[in-house]
């Protein structure tokens, strides 16, 4: 139901489209930066990670707006009044968006491999691990978006989700240090895949942290949704 609603409302296309666009930097930028760009803050992998962060922030905002809309127009209430547990309603939206995000990251990783494969340390396994860690980061941002959607009206929820996701995801990509318990490290691993000493270990750690944050935020989302008026 959730996926069909996303398809018919075109939100599925927007999320997938944003992720596909995120893969463009890897395809369009030269893998070896020219001397003219020596002072550039990011290399192609960095731009790839940044664009993916932007796509994830957009997905979080859409997830927030979706859940808030389901509350406002009563479709969530229609389900809840038919003995569908509220937790199931909230988590089904998470699963739908997470599936979308994961599917959308496959072409991003493929483009990164074809465009930048020879320059990546650790081979395809490192890229797959980094992509998986990125997907976990996406899951955490979706959870944040759904939490905002469970608590706030549609447009404030979308704005808050986008701002929080951007604030969490962008600084690590740009090289700023961040506490280990914040979920954005997977994107940093992706951005530094051409110079990472231990990409597999770093990806695994980043994925674990992101999944932990996603789980905690999802619990908060379910609790908030249980208490919300539908």
């Amino acid at each position, binding site marked *: 139901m959730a996926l069909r*609603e996303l398809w018919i409302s075109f939100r599925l296309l927007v999320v997938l489209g944003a992720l596909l666009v995120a893969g463009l930097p890897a395809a369009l930028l030269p893998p070896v930066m020219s001397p003219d760009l020596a002072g550039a803050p990011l290399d192609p992998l960095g731009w790839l990670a940044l664009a993916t962060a932007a796509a994830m922030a957009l997905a979080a905002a859409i997830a927030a707006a979706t859940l808030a809309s389901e509350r406002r127009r*009563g*479709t969530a*209430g229609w389900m*809840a*009044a*038919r*003995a569908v547990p509220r937790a199931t309603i909230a988590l089904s939206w998470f699963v739908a968006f997470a599936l979308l995000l994961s599917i959308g990251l496959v072409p991003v990783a493929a483009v990164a491999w074809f465009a930048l494969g020879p320059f990546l340390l650790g081979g395809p396994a490192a890229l797959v691990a980094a992509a998986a860690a990125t997907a976990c980061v996406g899951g955490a941002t979706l959870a944040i978006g759904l939490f905002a959607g469970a608590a706030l009206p549609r447009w404030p929820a979308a704005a808050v989700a986008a701002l929080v996701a951007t604030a969490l995801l962008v600084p690590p990509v740009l090289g700023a240090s961040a506490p280990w318990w914040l979920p954005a490290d997977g994107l940093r691993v992706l951005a530094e895949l051409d110079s990472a000493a231990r990409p597999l270990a770093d990806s695994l750690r980043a994925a674990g942290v992101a999944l932990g944050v996603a789980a905690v935020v999802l619990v908060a989302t379910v609790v908030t949704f249980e*208490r919300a008026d*539908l």
Partner: protein
Amino acid sequence: MPVGARLLLVSHPEAAASLLLRVLAGLARAAAGTVALAGLPRSDDSPAGWRRRVAYVASASAIYGWLSPVEALFLAADLAGIERPDAERRVDEMVEHLRLGADATRPVSRGGPGVLERTALGAALLGQPEVLLLDEPLRALDPAERRRLLRLPRKRVTLVIASRYPASEEGIVNQVALIRDGRVALHAGVDELTDAALPLNARGIDALANAAHAAPAAPS
């Protein structure tokens, strides 16, 4: 309320009746107190609990517009735990009862006026609930068709209708309750209104409630 009663719920302010139904349906939280319906506490969310025995139809029924009425009815049957062969029979009967015609297989958003409301009522009735909560139901339909649909086929259904237009529920309800300032100011049979020569409208219900409060207590 006895089983099978048909109660009209009127309130001042008008939103209080709708809010009460939403609390009974589990869609809004009560600030205090407990709720029990059909003999079960509202906190019992088990499949056999009150949620399967109580059905709620909102004033602005929210079925996904891309669902056809038949799809929505099958979805409601699935959520009610009705087996497929039985669901097919019930959906066929409901489509006929609701008189959906060609609109039955078109998306609800493209159906004629009242398709959404008929579908919402049908989805609620499909699970054969013991208690049916209706919030300003079927306003898009003409009065005669509305009365036909609200004269429910099962005698054992307890019906609660929240309405701002009490006169439109004549012939459908046999009891009336007035909520005023957060309290039940009146709960009486419709025949009491008739006996007092009062019409079934807001003024008549208010007058009966005022008379009930003004009546001296019987000597012990």
